[in-house]
């Protein structure tokens, strides 16, 4: 009887302690997360909306190096054109590929 009561109270103390510890940590990280994202959130979204980005040049260069090509210019202008053509193609594709509208990418 006393043993059970002792184990019960002990477990209550430890259990509530760990639970409060864990959720207090979550309070702290939630504030950190909020602080990290709030001010920059609009900028972030703009960046996300922009097509291509930092890795583009690196990878394009690697591709070219890998093929031993050096005469192709990788410029910012080029990328913007691509993006434009991309949107056009997207629209055209949408109109035509009626049957493959569900073809989200798994392949």
């Amino acid at each position: 009887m006393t043993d059970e009561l002792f184990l019960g109270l002990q477990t209550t103390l430890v259990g509530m302690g760990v639970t409060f510890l864990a959720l207090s940590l979550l309070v702290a990280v939630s504030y950190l997360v909020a602080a990290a994202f709030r001010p920059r959130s609009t900028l972030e979204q703009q960046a996300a909306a922009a097509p291509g980005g930092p890795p583009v040049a690196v990878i394009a260069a690697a591709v070219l190096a890998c093929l031993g090509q050096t005469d192709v210019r990788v410029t910012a202008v080029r990328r913007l054109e691509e993006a434009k053509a991309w949107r056009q193609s997207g629209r055209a594709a949408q109109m035509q590929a009626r049957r493959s509208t569900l073809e989200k990418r798994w392949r």
Partner: protein
Amino acid sequence: MNWAQIGERLAEATGLNALTLGHGIMLGVACFLVYLAVVRRYEPLLLLPIAFGVLLANLPLAGLMEEGGLLFWLYQGVRLGIFPPLIFLGVGAMTDFGPLLANPKTFLLGAAAQFGIFMTFTGALLLGFTPAQASSIGIIGGADGPTAIFLTSRLAPELLGPIAIAAYSYMALVPIIQPPIMKALTTKAEREVVMEQLRPVGKGERVAFPIVVTVVTSVLLPPAAPLIGMLMLGNLFRESGVVERLTTTAQGELINIVTIFLAVTVGATASADRFLTVQTLSIIALGLVAFAFGTAAGVVLGKVMYLLTGGKVNPLIGSAGVSAVPMAARVVQIVGQEAKPGNFLLMHAMGPNVAGVIGSAVAAGVLLAMFGK
């Protein structure tokens, strides 16, 4: 075969000779649960298939839950700890943690409300249950079905039936259990507190939240990882906005399929010899204790916050910390409006409400760490 042999074969096969009073009582229990689910609308999504599982498990000689039987195979998803986390995946995909992110302090109310779990654990020990069984009984106070089923399937699978039935029944009874406790512990002035509007929460925070919650809780307490991890994966699907197909499936067909299998087989663990015991009555009584103490502890911490913030926190929202999402939060709304018509506490109560889901999973992790094999 001669006629005598055929007669013997059929006499052996029919369940009529094997029918016992226990079977009969359990079929009555099953019908009562169907009544609660269909007529009283007690958590029908879970309680109706649980009820039918009770019925199927108590058909003499049908052997559906014996090795090789249909429900035996489906039950493996419970036994191996697969189904409850998958349900949490769907729950995560349905859950908006925005109110909690907007007011992270309410996490603490979700911690306080776990007090019912541990008080009930103590009570169960005193009634003679083993620590593992007492843990499973206590977790009823978490007011989260998948968490209760997950922990019980690991620590005391022999009690799965009554614990699941008690957990879902009391969840359905939250609007009846909680208000008297809430009112008994608060003054009218406290209940009338109007809380300031929650700030909007950006997408970046929403996406980062499930990741940091998973890492923090799982590193601190690894046994909580399956539940928290899947809950947060579902939420990441939801908040990322880029995998709508998966979000829809997680909170739709996948959770539905798993719910059917889980509920029927959990119900089917309630065979007559396991269920018709004094233990079951104790579990039902203790479950009520668990809900009551959880509610009370939440409200008490709410009162502390009321004092510390100079009256900016309405202590009623503490009672939502038991989870039972979104029912407990709606109860806060109702009791709050009774005190002050027009006061809108629902969104403020959603914070502790969803925090309670995380809190219970953490409490389950502690119990697993202490009393698991």
